[in-house]
């Protein structure tokens, strides 16, 4: 999570897409949760919020709820459906990032909904792209290799 936080914070401005960077921490939490289950997913979400709060100077409350929700949901649902499939990270990240953004929106309401929607769309798609190699890396670190690149069985 610390590495993902560093990656997200140091994301170069030239690689922003539509003014958005990918939700690397969300992808990392989702990937950890899918690979290891809900318990570690929840812990991953906790640490993701713990690291991001000070670095982004955002209040911890909303971040804890959003990240831990993503970790818990990904662990409970994704661990049964998507584990050991690298490409499964793409739709998983899409849902996780959407869940994260919507949860966070409750704590940090956007000033302009149109801009928020456009930004969220870019961030979701960007996170999907980043999540695939990240999930492959997590599965590789977990050992045993992954069964397929396809998200289906």
């Amino acid at each position, binding site marked *: 999570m610390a590495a993902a936080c*560093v990656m997200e914070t140091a994301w170069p401005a030239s690689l922003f897409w539509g003014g958005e960077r990918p939700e690397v921490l969300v992808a990392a939490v989702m990937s950890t949760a899918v690979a290891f*289950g809900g318990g570690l997913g*929840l812990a991953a979400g906790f640490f993701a919020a713990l690291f991001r*709060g*000070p670095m982004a100077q955002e209040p911890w409350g909303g971040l804890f709820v959003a990240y831990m929700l993503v970790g818990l949901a990904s662990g409970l649902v994704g661990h049964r459906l998507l584990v*050991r499939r690298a490409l499964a990270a793409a739709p998983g990240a899409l849902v996780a990032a959407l869940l994260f953004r919507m949860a966070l929106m409750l704590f940090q309401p956007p000033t302009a909904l149109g801009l928020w929607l456009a930004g969220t769309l870019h961030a979701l798609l960007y996170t999907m792209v980043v999540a695939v190699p990240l999930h492959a890396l997590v599965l590789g670190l977990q050992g045993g290799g992954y069964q397929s690149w396809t998200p289906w069985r």
Partner: protein
Amino acid sequence: MRHEVAAPEGLGRAAVVLIILALLLTVWQHIAWGRGARAWPERLVMRLITPAVALASSVVAGVHDVAFSLAAAGRLGRDNQCLRDEAARLRADNARLSEQVAENKELRKALNAPMPAGLERVAVAEVIARSPGLIKRRAKIRVADGVELAKDDILLSGGYLVGRVLEAMGSVGEAVLIVDSQHAVAALDQRSRDEGMLYAQPPSGGPDLLRLDKVVGRSDIAVGDLVLTSGLGQVYPKGIPIGRVIQITASPASSRVLSATVKPPMDLQRLSFVTVGRVSGVR
């Protein structure tokens, strides 16, 4: 193979612990922010993460720069060539403009020079040809279309005498310069009123000089005196400045007969423009 690390009851306990921790941290942060400070855990996280972020940023920036340079190498090469061409064109433009500025300066000088009394300005003429030798010093001049040159029109530069038109063909004329070896001007020293004939000094490779010969009078001529046309012979009107005395030599025959070396203020070999003057009332 699944790596379930927590049983459902374990998950519940972990979740409760994490939620309590999250709540405590949130409250801690809230209280710290209320005091305008940062919570201790925040400072710890920042101290741990910030160096790594700085390192990652510099690495990413370096990689990005290298990648960008490689990707843009071809385009940069083309841009560089375009800029070189542009610089060469601008240098040529600059040289042309500098030449125009110099020409403009000379024209202004010719136009703004005061006209000696009794002369009226006809036009400013461009020197379009010069005789090649150092003995016969002639120049071909041209004025703007519509202006007619006339024989015996007087040429000036900066208000000083340069020569006169020998032959006129419409707007083009051939002029003899005062440094021509066959040319002579009746001149006088403005201060002492000593008179004499002014000839071209034989060329020595240095600047064009004139010799005021056979100065007969009080012989009070001195270095620095201004020499003017005397009007004798009626070739040139009286009172046109020619140059200043730079040297005086006594004649071997009589110490009362002196020769003075006179230097015109302009470089007659490099004249580009001259003012054409005409005796007032003469067409």
